[in-house]
């Protein structure tokens, strides 16, 4: 059930778009995409600002390297245990661009008897990298539909992506990698019992949705082709706030657009918010300078304390009588 519900949800979305676009091109080509972008932008900002208002905890030094020490012969691991903002920036960049935490992923196995072993497990890291990077490249490539004169850097990306020069139109490497990686990430959840046990519909849904987006895109480019010039006209109409619905675009395109709109609207409500959230992970974004800098609990309120001097003032005479030493005569 945990798999079937998101599976049929994605199928339903495709069917809704295929049927609905016949009835109203404007709804699926203009209004739903606009609504989705609004939900995405404001939902994202709302979520992030809400997180931003929460107090920052004490520095969490759960790191994977030697911290900065007073002893000069102990070498600090500046990337894994940074004590400066620059080091934190480096660690964050590497995390976002290379997924170093996933590199440390381990797998646990119970051998007959009670022998428990931990082994390295790099496939999640590899699959994640392949997935996210090809997604990013595909996103960047799509900017050729979003700009009247396509800037040179975007053409370079497209050129590199198609440099194998297979078929016509040219095969994009990232199309293959993305679909492969999503399939792998999906199968991983289905086939590994431990992962399957902790997976929820909210884990399967984004994977299936993104597979649907990739599949409709691939269909449109290589198999059931759509008139790309008209597609760009539609998209440019949206971006210049003078929407148009050109003739002759098949429902397949509207299905693609509807799935993307769903993804955008679903984004701020779901685990996909890790796009913004990764920058807020306390174990990644805080310098470990606990011993160099005094960290005062930010939500301390002023407490009235009774100091020793005041105590002595109160009891000086009695203390002298009892023969106790006092600091002030």
């Amino acid at each position, binding site marked *: 059930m945990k798999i079937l519900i998101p599976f049929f949800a994605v199928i339903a979305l495709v069917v809704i778009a295929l049927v609905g676009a016949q009835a109203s091109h404007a709804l699926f080509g203009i209004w739903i995409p606009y609504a989705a972008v609004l939900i995405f*932008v404001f939902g*994202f*900002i709302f979520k*992030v*600002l809400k*997180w*931003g*208002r*929460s*107090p*920052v905890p004490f520095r969490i030094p759960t790191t994977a390297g030697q911290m900065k020490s007073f002893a000069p012969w102990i070498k600090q691991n500046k990337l894994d245990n940074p004590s400066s903002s620059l080091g934190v920036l480096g660690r964050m960049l590497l995390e976002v661009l290379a997924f170093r935490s996933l590199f440390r992923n381990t797998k646990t196995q119970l051998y007959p008897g009670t022998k428990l072993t931990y082994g390295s497990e790099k496939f999640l890291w590899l699959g994640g990298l392949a997935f996210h990077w090809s997604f990013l490249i595909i996103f960047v490539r799509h*900017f*050729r*539909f*979003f*700009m*009247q004169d*396509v800037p040179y850097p*975007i*053409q370079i990306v*497209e*050129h590199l992506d198609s440099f194998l*020069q297979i*078929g*016509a*139109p040219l095969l994009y490497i990232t199309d293959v990698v993305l679909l492969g990686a999503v399939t792998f990430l999906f199968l991983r959840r289905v086939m590994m019992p431990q992962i399957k046990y902790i997976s929820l519909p909210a884990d399967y849904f984004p994977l299936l949705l993104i597979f649907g987006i990739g599949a409709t895109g691939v269909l449109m480019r290589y198999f059931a*082709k*759509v*008139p*790309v*010039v*008209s597609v*760009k*006209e539609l998209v*440019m*109409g949206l*971006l*210049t706030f*003078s929407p*148009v619905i*050109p003739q*002759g675009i098949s429902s397949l395109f509207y299905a693609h657009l509807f799935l993307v709109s769903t993804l955008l609207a679903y984004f701020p409500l779901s685990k996909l918010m890790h796009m*913004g959230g990764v*920058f*807020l992970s306390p174990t990644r*974004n805080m310098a470990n300078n606990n011993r160099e800098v005094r960290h005062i609990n*930010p939500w301390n309120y002023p407490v009235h304390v009774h100091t020793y001097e005041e105590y002595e003032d109160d009891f000086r005479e009695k203390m002298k009588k009892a023969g106790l030493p006092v600091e002030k005569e």
Partner: protein
Amino acid sequence: MNNAWKIVIGVVIGFVAVFGFPFYYNLGKANVAPKLKYDTPAILEYEKEHGKKECVEPKEFMAKEHMQLLNTWRDEVVRYGQRIYVNSRGESFHISLQNTCLNCHSNKKEFCDKCHNYLAVNPYCFSCHIVPKEKQS
């Protein structure tokens, strides 16, 4: 204490700079699809003979599938030595990029390139194939 100001900066960079890019990049630009011209000498001559302007295949098919058609043409010639293409109307054409396509569409800059520049497509064919001298009416 919290990180609100850093987050505001992040949001500004993330949303205004990256996701807003297509919106402000296109500010003030008109949404114009390329206008294609079909008045080259060869097309006008074809019109005189056949009574109307036509491509090798119907226009809708050509707009979507011309790259696939060219690919099949190339395979026909270089793999199977087949140099005649019979289209869906039963007319036959000599299979050639330079001498058939670009004979009719002899205004490559105003035709193929117009569309391709609009969508940043850059076919690598013309690093080998020669573009005949531009002829426009």
